[in-house]
């Protein structure tokens, strides 16, 4: 009798539609109800230490270990947006133990300036890959907000590095004088 239809409406389908509507609403509401008793997925950021929750290969603000840097300019060349600027001088051939291969790597140039514009940096990690000694690497830091955008140009050079480079310049000059003499 239900299938006879009233006014062009299939009564069986009509009732099935209503039942289906109600049951699917109940299903959906049950899902949201269970969420009332689940712990929240978000964290209260400034109070919670988020750095420990980051993924292991997280690419944060770049850091350069100047003791390892051999000033080969591989990172500067790799950078697609040219935010790395290195100036260096030639010097004596010394050896630096690479952090990656644990082998001595020759160092013939000494950096006088090593700047990275973090405001431009897009954290692609292309500078990290060619580095032969593992001097340039990502940290897990991501909080870089400053009031002046010029403060975001990080300079990694230390006073000792400048002294070292200047010493190399002197040594080189002395050598040249000796050769001329």
């Amino acid at each position, binding site marked *: 009798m239900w299938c006879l239809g009233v006014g062009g409406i299939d009564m069986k389908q009509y009732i099935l539609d209503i039942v289906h509507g109600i049951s699917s609403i109940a299903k959906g*509401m049950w899902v*949201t109800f269970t*969420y*009332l008793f*689940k712990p*929240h997925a*978000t964290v209260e950021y400034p109070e919670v230490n988020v750095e420990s929750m980051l993924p292991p290969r997280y690419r944060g603000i770049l850091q350069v270990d100047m003791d390892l840097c051999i000033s080969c300019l591989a990172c500067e060349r790799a950078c697609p947006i040219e935010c790395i600027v290195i100036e260096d001088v030639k010097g004596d051939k010394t050896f630096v133990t690479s952090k990656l291969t644990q082998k001595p790597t020759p160092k013939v140039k000494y950096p006088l300036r090593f700047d990275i514009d973090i405001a431009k940096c897009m954290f692609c990690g292309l500078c990290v890959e060619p580095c032969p000694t593992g001097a340039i690497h990502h940290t897990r830091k991501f909080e870089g907000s400053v009031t002046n955008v010029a403060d975001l140009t990080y300079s990694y050079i230390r006073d000792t590095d400048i002294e070292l480079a200047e010493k190399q310049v002197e040594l080189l000059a002395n050598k040249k004088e000796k050769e001329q003499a």
Partner: protein
Amino acid sequence: MSVQYLADAAYREEVLLFFSRVIPGQVIEAITLFATVAVFFSLMVTPIAAISVYIERRLSAKMQSRIGCNRLGPEGIFQMVADGIKMISKEDFMPQGADAFLFKFAPYLVMVGAFVSFACIPFSKQLLLADINIGVVYLLALSSIVVIGIMLAGWSSNNKWSLLGSLRSAAQIVSYEIPLGMSLLIPVIITGSLNLQEINQFQSGGIHNWLVFYALPFTVPAFVIYFISALAEVNRTPFDLPEAESELVSGFHTEYSGIRWGLFFIGEYHNMFLISCIAVTAFLGGYQKSAANFPFVIVSLFFMFFITFHILTFLPKLGFSLFQGKNILDMLMFHHPKPMRRWLRIVCLILAVVVSILFYINHAHSNMIQVVTFISKAYFLVLFIMWLRWSLPRYRIDQLMDLCWKKLIPISFICLCGVLVWVVLI
């Protein structure tokens, strides 16, 4: 409570006697009535929007695995104050080419429609502003004022999205008024009265006397239909087509900003509370004593105590830090430690159970108990509406009309006829 005291007829007579020597009696009566209404609205009805917004924010956060506003004050309850201040202090902007008078007039119309309907809702045996004997008709008539406000808002904004939203709203409200009216007729038929107070008193004596369970096969669907069409009337999800954010920016209040937008917002939340109040009065036993009220009263008292305890434990700390001359905003961002919160929860639950049992024993003698019973039941429905909002997607316009004209109206008509037969035969 001062509200009940003011609403009390004896008090009104006292005042009348006192002043009648100086001023004519009718003027005094009008003034006292006005004062009653003003006190009632300012103490009971106005905070409802703020509280509902806070509850909705926390509830939606919980349903989306977030935390929600918990910064300003204990558990974030001063957030509603901050929201209000923000709304008032924003620029009152009017678009070019808008009809200035209607643009400014529309929000008041929406809000007044929501506010004035509370006049005939019986919160308790005595707390009832106007004991009208055509209460149901009054409510249905006033619910149509809101649609005029929405239409005016949409038309006067000089914005096509607003106009589309208001037209949708008009179509929706006009069609959903039919099942709404038909399902509200059922309590009227059963009790034989249009007076909400009488409908309420018909349901005294326990859950089996509630009108939802009066003629089980017909009144339960009628209640469901009432609820669905009331949702559509107040433009709540899943029927929020007039303000569909994804399609119409935000519908009829696209061009509104600041406190004018706030009035729409307040109107929406009041309407939500209003339809819950009507549902409680007409179907769920109103303020009458019943063991079935226990869960609602316990839950609402629990939250009341919880918030009160939070504020009480928070205030000394705030005062102390003010004394030390610290920044007040830093102090407002204050969290109770977790074990403290757990402890507070247990105490509040025990208190809520004890007090609700006391309420059950004492029910007939106190106005306040009846008011608490009524409001906690109404708030449960408000929570249900919020729960629906965060679970269901929006209807398409043709589905909306299909639901109304092909499903709700025939079924409500069947229910109406069934109840008529039931009342005659049984």
